[in-house]
């Protein structure tokens, strides 16, 4: 492998490590007793140091070296990691990011704050070391070459509780063990009575198949057991009194450093929840998974090809000539093909799905930073981190979420704890971040228990800003949506009075770019919820196929409220203001699709067609189409940059017959 390639790999790995540093530090602040997190941090930083030095990235190596010292000090001592230290650590991560960029781009000098942050780190360390026993720093003085050796310690050591030691027991029973009246089961029972069995490794490679196996013979030549116990090796040896000396082996696993690992809680998920959850679903938190890195463009290509496969398959399935064959074999094959195609499509889709956890983890830092800045105490509650979301969306979601969270912290939550007390709330503000499935969509909510939105103030400002009309009646959600409008936030004082409206139009644009929508719920004095609704994946939407003047169009079902055939008595025409339909006492405008798109005038009378009631940020209206064709999942394709600005059409989809149907952009129609 050439140097450039190696360097590329290093950069990727370094970025991965750095990404996790932020998160680990915040995690540690939340769980200050979990020194395991510090260990993990230390390991990451150590690896980073090693490879930085081997690439001649001296500045990075130097900085990381000191950071590592600091981490090592805290992981091996009982000293409390104060909030100030966390601040320094977080800044250090920012510096590491910047230095890496300097190294990669071969810039001269050091990034801003490099020296100062380095100094801060050294200050922490020197302050701590003064008058305190010298911490065991031998680890980081080892040459960077043999990281592997250094960390070749048994990971189970970290699972030991107070006073426990780790003992490794190897069972090497002969074939005739059952015959002699012994069984591994008996020994497991006896061993388990001496402590906690953490892990065992069974060599099952000698087991033959069912036809040749002799159950009376033992085919398990070796089982290694790791026991966490407060007893001595000699006590354990007593268990094996009657077994041949060469059939077992017991030894103490040495702890390399004299480090204390007061692990307060056991790993939560290893304790099988009793009751509902079947044990086979048990998942260990640290269960090793193996991953393959794939270039996302390759995934996209695969996805496109599968899209074509689905289309080709549909074509076969809908082909009259084939179905007229009435050949059972052919029909069956086509059916199987259809099943397999769908299976492949689902699997390929799932490749694009990743848990939203990483994005949510990043938000913890955002909350921390922004709450410090405005000097408010904020408690962040995160739910639904395992919700899976399209990879391309995850990347694009971070910015709008950061914006919403900052907005909640800055403006949603009351300015001071006193204000909250007066309102009868806890002094610390609560911000919650939730992800969950809602219908065929993914919902992501940012909520706060702050001041809520003052409807009247918003409406007044919206009218001043010419966003709203003074004569019209607006629903609450319509009023709230004004704060997402461009031009609203230019009102200087609005954010102070209402607590909302700082550049939220940016968020709206982002979300719409992802074919999603954003809803706002608020109660004055109680709090506000911003809900982002996104399609499951960027690539596929659930669509309603409609026909107008012979052409097929697709309306995203996300926007559809209902559809109906109107009767004459609910139709109204307002002079010069177009047509309306009275739907349960609500007057909804009618948009005739054929007129809107400049198609022919050859549409049926309204009472013989269908009105599709849709909703966008401006409220509800109805679209008049000749007929509904059906509901279908479609793969969204862009019409290319040449047609990207067409405001009525958001894209196209290739239908089963290979032809293209256009997808209506509900937000651009009315």
């Amino acid at each position: 492998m050439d140097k450039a390639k190696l360097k590329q790999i290093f950069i990727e790995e370094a970025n991965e490590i750095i990404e996790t540093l932020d998160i680990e530090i915040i995690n540690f602040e939340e769980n200050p007793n979990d020194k395991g997190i510090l260990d993990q941090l230390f390991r990451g930083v150590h690896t980073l140091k090693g490879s930085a030095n081997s690439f001649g990235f001296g500045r990075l190596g130097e900085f990381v070296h000191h950071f590592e010292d600091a981490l090592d000090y805290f992981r091996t001592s009982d000293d409390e990691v104060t909030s100030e230290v966390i601040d320094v650590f977080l800044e250090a991560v920012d510096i590491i990011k910047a230095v890496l960029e300097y190294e990669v781009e071969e810039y001269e000098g050091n990034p801003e704050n490099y020296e100062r942050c380095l100094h801060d780190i050294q200050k922490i360390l020197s302050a701590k070391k003064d008058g305190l026993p010298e911490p065991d720093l031998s680890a980081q003085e080892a040459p960077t070459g043999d990281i592997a050796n250094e960390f070749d310690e048994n990971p189970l050591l970290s699972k030991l509780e107070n006073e426990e030691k780790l003992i490794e027991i190897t069972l090497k029973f002969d074939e005739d063990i059952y015959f002699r009246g012994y069984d591994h089961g008996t020994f497991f029972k006896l061993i388990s009575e001496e402590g906690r069995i953490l892990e065992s490794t069974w060599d099952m490679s000698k087991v033959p198949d069912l036809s040749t196996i002799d159950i009376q013979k033992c085919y398990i030549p070796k089982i290694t057991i790791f026991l966490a116990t407060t007893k001595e090796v000699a006590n354990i040896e007593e268990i094996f009194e009657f077994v041949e000396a060469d059939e077992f082996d017991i030894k103490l696993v040495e702890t390399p450093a004299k480090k204390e690992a007061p692990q307060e809680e056991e790993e939560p998920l290893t304790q099988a929840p009793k009751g509902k959850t079947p044990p086979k679903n048990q998942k260990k938190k640290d269960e090793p998974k193996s991953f393959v890195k794939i270039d996302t463009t390759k995934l996209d290509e695969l996805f496109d090809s599968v899209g074509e496969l689905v289309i080709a398959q549909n074509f076969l399935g809908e082909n009259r000539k084939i179905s007229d064959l009435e050949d059972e074999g052919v029909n069956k094959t086509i059916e199987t093909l259809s099943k397999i195609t769908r299976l492949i499509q689902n699997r390929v889709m799932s490749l694009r799905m990743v848990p939203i956890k990483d994005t949510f983890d990043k938000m913890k830092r955002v909350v921390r930073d922004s709450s410090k800045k405005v000097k408010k105490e904020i408690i962040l509650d995160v739910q639904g981190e395992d919700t899976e979301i399209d990879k391309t969306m995850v990347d694009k979601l971070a910015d709008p979420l950061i914006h919403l969270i900052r907005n909640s912290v800055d403006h949603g939550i009351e300015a001071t704890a006193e204000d909250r007390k007066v309102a009868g709330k806890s002094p610390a503000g609560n911000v919650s971040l939730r992800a969950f499935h809602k219908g065929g969509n993914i919902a992501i909510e940012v909520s706060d228990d702050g001041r809520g939105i003052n409807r009247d103030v918003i409406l007044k400002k919206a009218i001043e800003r010419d966003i709203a009309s003074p004569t019209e009646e607006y629903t609450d959600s319509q009023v709230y949506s004004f704060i997402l409008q461009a031009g609203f936030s230019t009102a200087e004082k609005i954010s102070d009075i209402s607590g909302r409206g700082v550049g939220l139009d940016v968020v709206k644009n982002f979300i719409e770019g992802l074919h999603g929508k954003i809803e706002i719920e608020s109660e004055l004095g109680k709090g506000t919820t911003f809900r982002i609704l996104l399609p499951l994946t960027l690539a596929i939407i659930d669509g309603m196929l409609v026909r107008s003047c012979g052409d097929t169009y697709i309306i995203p079902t996300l926007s559809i409220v209902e559809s109906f055939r109107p009767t004459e008595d609910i139709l109204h025409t307002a002079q010069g203001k177009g047509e309306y339909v009275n739907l349960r006492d609500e007057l909804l405008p009618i948009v005739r699709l054929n007129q809107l798109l400049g198609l022919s005038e050859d549409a049926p009378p309204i009472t013989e067609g269908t009105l599709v009631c849709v909703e966008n940020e401006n409220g509800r209206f109805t679209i008049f189409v000749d007929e509904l064709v059906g509901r279908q999942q479609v793969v969204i394709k862009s019409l290319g940059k040449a047609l990207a600005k067409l405001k009525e059409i958001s894209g196209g989809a290739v239908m089963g017959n290979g032809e293209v149907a256009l997808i209506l952009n509900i937000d651009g129609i009315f």
Partner: protein
Amino acid sequence: MSDVSITEEKLSLAKVDRFLTLYLEDEQYGLDINMVKEIIALMKTTPVPKTPHFLEGVMNLRGNIIPVVNMRSKFNMETKETDDRTAIVIVGIQGSDIGFIVDRVEEVIAVEENQYSEPPQFGTKIDSEFVSKMARVDNNVIMILDLNKVFSEKELNFLDSFEEEEETLA
């Protein structure tokens, strides 16, 4: 000595340009072969509302949706019934694929430098500004199209050009 002659030969080879020739009405046009992605038989396109008349619509090219321009409409020629020789030439322009409906495609020809002449100022059926040069090959006159000129940066955005048209109409 021999080395020199080979180099000269190479040089002269390098000067040859290759063009795909195609017909609109009875005139022969050439398209730089490097821009041509592929040629396919005419297929159904989906009309896109609110676009200029020369945009025939969009079509599915192996899963991707691309715009299709009717070359005759673009050059303000009379429309003609399509037949089995009508073809769509897929061309890459400024990073986008665009299909062009032409009466028929002929062949790929090589044009040497000395076969070019300046474009005519008049007498052609299409606006001469789209013709970058002329080539005379085996007694045929081929007008070399400059598609980058056919769609200026602005015009490639089919919508803008339409709005402009609308304005001029109004």
